[in-house]
């Protein structure tokens, strides 16, 4: 009924939109949001394939991905907050202190 290719295509599309966002936005917060998009795209893929294969594993994995997303968001925000307190800016380009 729902063509699997469309699902896969949708998932990929959203994934790559998210990828573009990560690579092309300087704003940290927006970067993180794009990250969420990435994960959403993955989830779509999982769900679609799970349905296609008639396996619950798709949903299970998608669930775990959501959990990961939540954790990563929380920690990421905490980092951004502390970083922002130091630097008074949320410009990703200023993230250069990891220089070895």
């Amino acid at each position, binding site marked *: *009924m*729902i063509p*699997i*290719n*469309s*699902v896969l*295509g*949708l998932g*990929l599309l*959203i994934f*790559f*939109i*998210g*990828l573009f*966002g990560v*690579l*092309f*936005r*300087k*704003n940290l*917060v*927006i970067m*993180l*949001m*794009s990250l*969420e*998009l990435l994960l*959403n795209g993955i*989830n779509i893929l999982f*769900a679609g394939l*799970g*349905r*296609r*294969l*008639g*396996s*619950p*594993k*798709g*949903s*299970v994995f*998608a*669930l*775990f991905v*959501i*959990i990961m*997303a*939540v*954790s990563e968001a*929380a*920690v990421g*925000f*905490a980092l*951004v*907050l*502390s970083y*922002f*307190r130091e630097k008074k800016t*949320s410009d990703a*380009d200023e993230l250069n202190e990891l220089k070895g």
Partner: protein
Amino acid sequence: MIAQAVFYVFAGLAVVSAILVVLQKNAMHSVLYLAFTVLSVAGVFFCLEAEYLGAIQILVYGGGIVVLYIFVIIIVNLKEVAREKRKLFPKVFIIGLPIVLLAEISAVIFASRPALPSASGTGVAFRTVAEELFSTYLIPFELASMLLLAVLIGAIIIARRKLLHDPD
């Protein structure tokens, strides 16, 4: 038929919203569109008869993460939006890379491949998912809860004001 049309509506909404998320200058606007995207994706899930997933999506993503983003934006207080041009790397390379990746994966996915087993038609029942979750994937499930706990603590530690160093 109907299902397909609904799916395509939700799909289209999701894509558009996603694009808008990435392209907004104002972070608050991005968050809004993100919320929209999340809801659209949840709709897609429902179309794919992954109800549980859709429900979780709305609850966690929409209710939790988006709200979290809003709070962060408020606290971080993004005012200025700097130029969005990257200066350090050739733009072509950066644009090209994801395109290449997309092309590759598309080629893989849409090329001839061993046929998937015929669509079962119905989706996977919620019951089955739950059973799978609590039997085969029990340990990861428990570990996930531990992770959430750790994240909780960790985030608080990371984000708290360091009274010793802070000049305030």
